[in-house]
């Protein structure tokens, strides 16, 4: 959903290994980032998302591959010569300067006249909603305020690209939600490319035009939040983006899959006959119905109230199924699990070890 086809950043076959390690942090990454795009690099810690950001910022140099800015190779351009600014994970504000001087730092370096600096700092403080804080010292600010100063300090330089490294990680939930909306607004208003790093899948889905899911130094999937959520390419993505029921299955032929001891109609095709696959069904796509021969039956194991919905774990055909339902169920009750062919997502077996984060009863299937 990029607003323009113009590529501003291109990563081409980038690989990198840290000096004191054998396994690569990044393994042959290729990624295009467009003008005015809000791109989120999403993945668990150690997946290489921060390293990717540091390469774009100039704080890390890839061993192999090229980094292009507007088509020009900038691998060896030092950070202070790049038209990129960064909001660091722990803000990294200058403790010896007050709010005004922090925000003015970059403008003073580039010798902007003081009068213009004054005006631009004032505008920026207004955007981040901190007018009147000019003379405050940094340690007088709350985490949320420091975070907004860090954003103002970067944005005031009119960068072509703003890099954000888990900028909301230290904030509490309510403030984080507010800042997500705020950041998205700022990005649209100033029409700047944002490259955002997070491990929070909800944050990624809320804010991004494009989500890049990474794991173990490799890109798993690039797509819009809807694509990533509805059409995950493998079990890792499906599991990382929201809770999922991931089950081993066998593709009998196009549009017919076997799992949990039954054959089901589905909408996916293009697999080999009898190919082993992963079947993903989202917890909110499953409806609890009275037990019958028409549906998959199971025993309710646990029921947990989650606010908006109940999380119900059902043991069916030796697998634990997670169901999100607005109606509760009784533990021990035999129920039916109902879902439509559209709710069944078929994915090629991933080579990655199975993730056991949400599927509790993995031992039984092995």
């Amino acid at each position, binding site marked *: 959903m990029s607003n323009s086809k113009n590529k501003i950043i291109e990563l081409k076959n980038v690989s990198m290994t840290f000096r004191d390690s054998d396994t690569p942090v990044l393994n042959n990454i290729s990624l295009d980032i467009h003008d005015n795009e809000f791109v989120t690099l999403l993945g668990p810690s150690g997946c290489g998302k921060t390293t990717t950001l540091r390469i774009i910022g100039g704080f890390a140099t890839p061993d192999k591959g090229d980094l292009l800015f507007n088509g020009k190779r900038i691998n060896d351009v030092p950070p*202070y010569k790049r038209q990129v600014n960064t909001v*660091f994970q722990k803000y990294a504000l200058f403790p*010896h300067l007050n709010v005004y001087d922090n925000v003015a*730092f970059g403008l003073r370096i580039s010798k902007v006249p003081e009068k213009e600096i004054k005006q631009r700092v004032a505008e920026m403080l207004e955007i981040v909603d901190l007018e009147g804080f000019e003379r405050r010292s940094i340690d007088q600010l709350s985490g949320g305020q420091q975070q907004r100063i860090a954003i103002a300090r970067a944005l005031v*330089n009119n960068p072509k690209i703003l890099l954000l490294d888990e900028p909301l990680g230290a904030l509490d939930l309510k403030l984080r939600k507010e800042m997500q909306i705020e950041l998205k607004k700022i990005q649209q208003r100033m029409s700047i490319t944002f490259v955002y790093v997070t491990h929070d899948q909800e944050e990624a889905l809320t804010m991004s035009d494009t989500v890049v899911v990474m794991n173990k130094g490799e890109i798993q999937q690039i797509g819009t939040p809807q694509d990533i959520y509805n059409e995950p390419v493998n079990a890792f993505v499906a599991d990382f983006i929201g809770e999922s029921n991931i089950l081993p299955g066998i593709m009998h032929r196009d549009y017919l899959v076997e799992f949990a001891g039954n054959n089901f109609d589905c909408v996916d095709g293009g697999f080999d006959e009898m190919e082993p696959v992963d079947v993903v069904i989202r917890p909110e796509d499953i409806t609890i119905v009275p037990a019958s021969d028409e549906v998959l039956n199971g025993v309710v194991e646990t029921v947990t109230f989650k606010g908006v919905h109940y999380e119900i774990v059902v043991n069916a055909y030796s697998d634990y199924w997670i169901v999100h339902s607005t109606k509760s169920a009784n533990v021990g009750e035999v129920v039916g699990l109902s879902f439509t062919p559209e709710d069944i997502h078929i994915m090629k077996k991933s080579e990655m070890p199975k993730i056991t984060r949400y599927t509790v009863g993995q031992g039984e299937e092995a």
Partner: protein
Amino acid sequence: MNKNTKWVASPYLLWMVVFVIVPLVLIGVFAFTVNVPYDLEGNRLTEEQASELKLAYEGTDEEIPVVYKTVFSWNNIIAVSQYLPVLLNSAWLALIATLICLVIGYPIAYLMSRVNPSYQRLIQMLIMLPMWMNFLLRTYAWMTLLEKNGWINRILGLVGIGPFDMINTQGAVVLGMIYNYLPFMILPLYSVMLKIQNTTIEAAQDLGAGNIRVFTKVVIPLSMPGIASGITMVFVPAVSTFIISRMLGGGTNMLIGDLIDLQFLGNAYNPNLGAAISLVLMAFILLCMSITNQLDNGDEEMEGKML
């Protein structure tokens, strides 16, 4: 502090009173008093009269009819003024040594704080190592190095340079100060620089600052407290040293420390004057420290101008 645990500090209080407050008071008393001779009738005698009387009675069985009374006087403090050149010379040499320590120590401390921790420990060890040896021994070693036919001149002689007069010069005294007090500059700087986050430096680079400006606008301002305490920790012992100047300066370059030493343990025995010089030196050091403290506290007000 909790009321019940306050007593834990009492040994320290006792220590302070016995070894800090009492000596300070004594120095004050000595500095502002003189011993004046009187005869037995209570008439004030001049120093000449007193020594005449002592000479006259020497060797006889009779008691010398001279009593000394301690009276308040400004004379000691006034007398210190004639030693002002010595004080200024000491301060000058200590200042040069302090500045050179800062110039040498600052980059060492900075690099030390940026390398990986195992190297940091090694460098720290190398800096501390000479300090494990006796101070006198270290200074003696420099004597044998700097002598007319010492090691340095001998080695220079092999390539046909020299010999140079190195020992018994002010330069040798400054060298001794630098050598002995350099660790006291490096260590406080290092501990302050350790607290400068790498991301703070990266943030400055990110905002367009090259290496030089990262240094002048971020690293130096953030290390000001270390600079202030390093300067204090080198300047204060350097300005009052007497061993270094005696051994490497050969007694030709008397420092204020030597002068005090002479009044207590030397030929010029006069504890009252010695105490007065100490007191003036103390006041001078306090003045210098308050200036360096400005350096530390002042940076918040100064930063606007620095940028």
